[in-house]
């Protein structure tokens, strides 16, 4: 079979970030897809080992600008797991409020970009217009439109003034009808339905095979959500439900994200109401971190975000492991893109809401004495495959 390779990237008008895809095409149909990464790799796990426990909160915030409070919450959860402490109730509500406001702005951003990729610039402009009031709320309560710096080990850094609560509620109340209008116009639109329904389908089995998380998994009928399954912050104190769809196509992914926005508003409104009554500290003072290890999860807008920290009792983490949701979601392209046309690939790629700055990895093995490069990632894979072959030969198993 003849194959044509269509390269996308690393700098392509479609992408916000540098990334590189190779589409192997037979005519209009995509038969395989290859993904090369590393353009955004900044070595955050290593940098984290050179920073103070408190400084790492600011560092992990800068892993990703869109889910910029998910990583700090997951990191704080990890350190609090190590310390075996529970944060004050007021801090719990504030964490949930910031987390859900972020989810709102991230999902609206995705809806806008997806509309833009489909040539529906009206959706792009609408969604981004309705996103602005959320950023205004953020600026009012945290002091910055993005990168909120609200999380702190043992609680939160800044309190939400009770006087602001009514203003936030008013802005959210105004947002709701606009969001309903946007959701209605996306779900009922015949053109969008024709473009998105049945495109890039992932079955529940695919999701389990790849270990995909977040709205993608929920759009395929896999009912997982860290907020419910491993409760933290105030998610077990308020009423809300996990949204799932059964079809697994891009349309379901859009519907899941849009409906999640309403759940987010519901959570924020309940948290704000409780915040008026709950008084007390917003953070516990932590004097030192004892030796030990801890893990933390958080349901970022793109899926489960996982942090692992190990301490030896010093002022810095000895090891800090981060697994961002896009890392497991991106390989699903291998299934969802194959068999589709080139024109549909862009929206399938966008449907995952991939975040490359969260995900970038670099693998290189250096010689310890000479600092000479020995292998890169590809060599390591070849090496591993050769080893399997050798083992097979030794055990007397024939190659298939």
């Amino acid at each position, binding site marked *: 079979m003849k194959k044509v390779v269509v390269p996308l990237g690393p700098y392509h008008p479609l992408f916000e*970030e*540098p990334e590189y895809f190779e589409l192997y095409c037979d005519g209009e149909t995509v038969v395989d897809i290859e993904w090369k990464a590393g353009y955004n790799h900044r070595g955050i796990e290593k940098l984290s080992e050179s920073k103070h426990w408190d400084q790492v909160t600011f560092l992990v915030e*800068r892993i990703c*600008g869109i889910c910029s409070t998910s990583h700090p919450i997951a990191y704080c959860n990890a350190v609090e797991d190590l310390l075996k402490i529970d944060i004050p109730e007021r801090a719990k509500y504030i964490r949930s409020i910031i987390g859900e406001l972020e989810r709102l702005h991230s999902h609206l951003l995705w809806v806008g970009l997806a509309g833009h990729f489909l040539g529906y610039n009206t959706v*792009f402009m609408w969604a981004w217009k309705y996103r602005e009031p959320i950023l205004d709320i953020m600026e009012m309560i945290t002091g910055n439109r*993005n990168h909120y710096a609200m999380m702190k080990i043992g609680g939160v850094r800044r309190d939400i003034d009770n006087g602001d609560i009514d203003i936030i509620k008013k802005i959210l109340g105004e947002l709701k009808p606009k969001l309903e209008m946007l959701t209605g116009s996306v779900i009922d639109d015949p053109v969008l339905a024709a473009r998105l329904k049945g495109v890039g389908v992932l079955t529940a089995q695919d999701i389990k095979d790849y270990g995909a998380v977040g709205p993608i998994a929920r759009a395929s009928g896999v009912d997982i959500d860290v907020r419910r399954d491993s409760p933290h912050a105030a998610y077990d104190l308020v009423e809300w439900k996990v949204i799932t769809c059964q079809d697994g196509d891009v349309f379901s992914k859009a519907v899941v994200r849009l409906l999640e926005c309403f759940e987010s508003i519901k959570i924020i409104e309940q948290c704000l109401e409780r915040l008026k009554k709950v008084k007390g500290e917003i953070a516990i003072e932590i004097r030192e971190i004892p030796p030990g290890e801890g893990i933390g999860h958080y349901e970022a807008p793109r899926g489960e975000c996982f942090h692992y920290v190990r301490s030896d009792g010093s002022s810095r983490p000895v090891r800090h492991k981060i697994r961002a949701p896009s890392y497991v979601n991106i390989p699903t392209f291998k299934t969802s893109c194959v068999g589709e046309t080139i024109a549909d690939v862009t929206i399938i790629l966008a449907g995952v809401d991939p975040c490359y*700055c969260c995900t970038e990895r670099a693998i290189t093995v250096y010689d310890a004495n000479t600092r000479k490069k020995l292998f890169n990632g590809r060599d390591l894979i070849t090496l591993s495959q050769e080893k399997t072959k050798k083992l097979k030969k030794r055990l007397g198993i024939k190659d298939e």
Partner: protein
Amino acid sequence: MAIDLKTKALKKSLFVFHLSTGSCNNCDIEILDCLTPRFDVERFGIVLVGSVKHADVLLVTGIGTTKNANRIKLLYQQMPKPGFVVAIGACACTGGIFRDGYTMSGPIDTIIPVDVYIPGCPPKPEAMIAGIVRLLERIK
């Protein structure tokens, strides 16, 4: 910045190309935000273009990772001259929180010449517009 006739011709409508070189995405979404209804820089003739060969201004965000450094140089060479480079965000200006990282080969002004610096993490859309206005004033 030498100001000749060609440069003066640029002041009417700036075409910008956005180049992310290892940023956290935040400056990038704030650049896009400038194009959306609240700020809408297209009113002033500023348009985001898809190819660097159509651009007058290169908006660079991020630290300039080792893997990207050569590509930044290549893209700068492909940009028609006279053209300007704007470094957006703390990472592009100084390296920010990532300056000690092992993949850092920036800040951007060590890779390509920079005309305007817009600091902030991320700079607000207003700050970006103010930066571009400064650039326009210098052209005039």
